[in-house]
């Protein structure tokens, strides 16, 4: 098991964002976490990355508990996140953004990663010296994904990569995620676009107000009546 989350509870002051959730991610899988606004999806990813501290429960990664590990050390352990809303460094160039993604890596590794990312996203290569703030939304999302790949993670966390993108771009981003997974990377995908998410995931969990209410294989979930009603707009 690559990642195992057990009875994870998180609260922000008085607000209980997660009420004891458990889920697992196996090596090589694409697992998706779907849910409505405010369900606690981003909180889950932030807690895995150490940005938010859990109130209770454990997060184990490669059989080690990482609850108390600092965010920057979690990156060195091989977890990388594409945060919600892209969060690229707008005042840095595309190249500098990518270099930041490889902050934990040495020069040689950075150069290698850079080549790989540019190969995957030729559009970033063309805009290498442009400020990230001047990129279009779709390009920023590609940059955010490219930046996360720079550290060569084993586990990639993606927080709503389809947010605010046109349907064609959404398809492009999802096919890129599939490709990334095929190249051997494990993916934990958070989405509101359940349709797309279920189409590329192996397994899925449904999160509702801080609790996991359903789980199963993606095909099962896509057929589930409740899921179709609540998340697939039927």
């Amino acid at each position, binding site marked *: 098991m690559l990642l195992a989350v057990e009875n994870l509870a998180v609260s922000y002051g008085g607000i209980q964002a997660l009420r004891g959730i458990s889920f697992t991610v196996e090596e090589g899988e694409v697992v998706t976490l779907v849910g409505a606004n405010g369900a606690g999806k981003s909180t889950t990813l932030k807690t895995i990355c150490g*940005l938010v501290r859990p109130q209770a429960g454990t997060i184990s990664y490669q059989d080690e508990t990482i609850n108390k590990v*600092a*965010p920057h050390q979690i*990156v060195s352990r091989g977890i990388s996140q594409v945060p919600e809303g892209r969060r*690229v460094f*707008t005042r840095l160039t595309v190249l500098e953004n990518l*270099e*930041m*993604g490889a902050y934990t890596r040495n020069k040689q590794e950075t150069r290698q990663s850079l080549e790989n990312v540019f190969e995957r996203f030729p559009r970033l290569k063309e805009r290498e010296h442009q400020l990230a703030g001047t990129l279009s939304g779709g390009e920023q999302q590609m940059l955010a994904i490219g930046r996360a790949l720079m550290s060569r993670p084993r586990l990639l966390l993606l927080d709503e990569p389809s947010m605010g993108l046109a349907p064609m771009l959404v398809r492009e981003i999802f096919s890129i995620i599939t490709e990334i997974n095929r190249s051997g990377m494990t993916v934990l995908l958070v989405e509101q676009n359940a349709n797309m998410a279920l189409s590329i995931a192996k397994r899925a969990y449904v999160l509702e107000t801080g609790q996991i209410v359903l789980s199963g294989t993606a095909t099962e979930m896509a057929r589930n009546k409740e899921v179709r009603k609540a998340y697939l707009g039927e």
Partner: protein
Amino acid sequence: MMMRCEILTLALGRSRLILIFYRYSCSKCFYDSCRPGGALKAIGGRCMFWQQFWQQLVNGVTLGSTYALIALGYTMVYGIIQLINFAHGEVYMIGAFTGLIMVTVYKVNFIIAILAAMLVCVPLAILMERIAYRPLRKSTRLAPLISALGVSIFLQTLVTLIKGGPNPLAFPQVIQDTVYVLGPVRFSTVQVLILVMASLLMVFLQFTVKYTKIGKAMRATSEDYEAASLMGINVNRVVSFTFAVGAALAGAGGVLVGMYFNSIHPFMGVSVGLKAFCAAVLGGIGSIPGAMLGGIFLGIAEVMGVAAGFDTYKEAIAFGLLIIVLLFKPTGLLGLPIQRKV
């Protein structure tokens, strides 16, 4: 103003280099009577004005570059953790005292004194951040500000106690002061030194922030603290580094100002600190080129104001200017547009 400068004579007298600039302008009188030498005696009112103007400009840029050195510390720290480090002026004061001890007790030359001041100020600022600011980072915004004021008063009192009183100490003349003439303008060696040192430090800083790994991490952290830590950047280390760089510049500034005004005291950080803070806001707080520009702008305004006879209102000039600029451009001269919240 259309003007052209031309070096006519480059005379090397004894060991001292004297550069003489001649200047043309559309005005014939200007050309004739401002020529150094005999004609200088026949200065008309108008040329007197220009001679004064250029002289005060040089003095202003000199004073301004010391403000800039200190303003950089305010602006960088603000850029990273949105804190106005009110104790930064005291770092500069301690830099000046370190320099004084080095030149009087250890009799070292000024370069070593400047380096020593930087070396003392860096750990001081890092310690300050660890003890007084870091534990308060997640509390209200007011808490670290109050803490900064506390540190500031603590350091002033500490130095007063060690020194045994608040009265000023003379900063001995550490370099032979020669006057260089450049057209209508006279430079002292200390002025040249301040200009050269400040420029070198600022170029070095710009280089660090623009091209080094830690410099890029600084920019990334100042834009998005959380995203930076998701990159594997140790944000705490970046914060310490920022304090260290600011302190090194302030320490150097302290020694340079000591040499310039020949007098230092435990409360010297208060007014200079406040003015440097003004300079940082003037230039656009958070912006490094802004702090440089703001400092120089303020220095020129202050010196010109004094030359124009507003000596008594010297201190008011900085704040008046600040208010005027902020009325028209609330983010400062080179300030970034108000940040969109993510």
